[in-house]
């Protein structure tokens, strides 16, 4: 499915002309972008540029007013979070969205528990879920006991669990909202490494971040948003931090004149 560049023919995720209005605020205005398999796209922009709204629409948490979404060249409707998952879209939220009172394995399987037969009582298959969680964690280089409660984990460990959960169920597209914002240096590097592994396994990845250093370290392309619009897209290897900063702030500067 790849052409001579080693790039897939069509994007695994494509967004066309998405608009969303919250009362008097135009959060998204005809925004379009695409993510290819084995690619990390950085999504940057000032606060209020529309990045989170876009993520929420793709997650099925909010619904777009206008526009189309394609997954593997097929037009799709994302009405709720379950929908998004069925399409292979996984989100890693900034707050990680883990249930603190449950253990790691339960969090990874939340909403998709393995149950024993007969299915009538929805009896949990605890040992299999623990084993799967253990295997999954070690596959991204985390040596954690899946029976540990999330409450007792460090920030980096929690991020690891959130990342592991994202790739567990046939995910093809992973969207990460500020994955390194709350982490220390070592934990940030470990997280970025895991995100790069996602790409190496053929996933399409989109990372929202304010940290341009992280963005330049791992992305293949950078998409810049401002005031709900996509104002530029650059290949990471062919652009500079200064150009991206300019794209993020340019409009603001123009308007100020």
């Amino acid at each position: 499915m790849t052409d001579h560049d080693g790039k897939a023919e069509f994007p695994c995720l494509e967004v066309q002309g998405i608009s969303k209005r919250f009362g008097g605020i135009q959060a998204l205005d005809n925004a379009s972008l695409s993510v290819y398999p084995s690619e990390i796209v950085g999504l940057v922009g000032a606060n209020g540029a529309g990045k989170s709204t876009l993520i929420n629409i793709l997650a099925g948490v909010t619904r777009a007013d206008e526009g189309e979404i394609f997954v593997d060249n097929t037009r799709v409707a994302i009405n709720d979070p379950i929908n998004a998952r069925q399409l292979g879209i996984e989100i890693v939220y900034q707050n990680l969205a883990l249930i603190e009172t449950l253990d790691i394995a339960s969090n990874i399987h939340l909403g998709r528990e393995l149950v024993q037969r007969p299915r009538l009582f929805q009896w949990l298959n605890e040992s299999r879920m623990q084993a799967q969680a253990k295997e999954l964690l070690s596959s991204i280089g985390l040596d954690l006991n899946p029976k540990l409660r999330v409450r007792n984990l460090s920030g980096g460990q929690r991020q690891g669990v959130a990342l592991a959960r994202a790739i567990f169920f046939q995910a093809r597209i992973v969207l990460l909202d500020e994955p390194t914002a709350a982490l220390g240096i070592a934990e940030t590097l470990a997280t970025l490494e895991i995100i790069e592994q996602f790409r190496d396994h053929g996933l399409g990845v989109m990372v929202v971040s304010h940290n341009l250093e992280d963005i330049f370290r791992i992305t293949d392309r950078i998409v810049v948003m401002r005031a709900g619009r996509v104002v530029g897209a650059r290949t990471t290897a062919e652009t500079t931090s200064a150009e991206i900063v300019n794209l993020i702030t340019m409009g603001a500067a123009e308007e100020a004149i």
Partner: protein
Amino acid sequence: MTRQGLLVGALFLLCILITIGQPRFLTIYNWLNILQQAASIGLVSSGVALLMIGGGFDLSVGSVVALGGYLVAVGFGTGLPIPLVILLAVLAGAAVGAVNGYGVAYLRIPALIMTLGMLYVVRGGVLFLSGGETAGRGYPESFTFLGKGDLIGLPVPVIIMGAAYVALYLVHKKTRFGRYTIAVGTDAEIARRAGVNSRFHVAKLYILSGALAAAAGVMLSARLNASTTNAGIGYELEVIASVVIGGTSLFGGEGTIAGTLLGVVFLAVVHNALNLLGVSPFLQQFAIGSLLLFSAAADILAPLLAQRRLNLAALSQFRRPQSG
């Protein structure tokens, strides 16, 4: 875990103290009596415990107990067969729970207000329909067996309560329903984003609580061989006290079914002891209220104290002189 250990210890100590003051306390007869009297409150508490683990709250249970009893009277009055009488009463309790659940989960009425309103709506409805009189008495013996009978040497209500606790323990620990209850009670929005139908799940928990409260009402009317309209008055305090003393968090997400049973037994023993020692019933309410407040304070303070210990430990690490 430590909370329940503490509770078992306190219960044990209490038993020793009472036995010294009143040796009659430690007879099997007295214990079966304690458990039998605790059975209806215990049955209600089991459902409320799961509801509170799921982040809910139900003040209407006492009125639903009366509703269950009232419908027993109505059912027998119209000549329905016993199983149908019981089913109808339990379904009515579930319906009250559904109204609570709809109001809380879908209309977003605060649980305290929603279930307080239903406390009065249901109690008022039962009082109006029954004219405030005892609605029925003199039930068939095969029915009163549920409240007064013995089976393998145990009072039937105690067996019913025990079965409810075993079932809900398994639901909480072993099933997807229990897992979702913990998730929704901890953070309903996060659970929703993980694909759990949070609102519907919360509604189901209110339905369960209502159904079990009505079942307790049926059991109570069988024990008393009458359906009194003031049945279940004040249950909300006893039930919430049992659940909270049993270690369930007021903020949802945490708690155990076994702990709730311990809480029920603990309160029943306190009542029994105060009776045996001849303490005024008014002072008993005072005591139960104090125990509830004490447990609630412990629920709120324990995490804060644990956090402070952690902070102090972290600080002492920084203060440690550097080696090398």
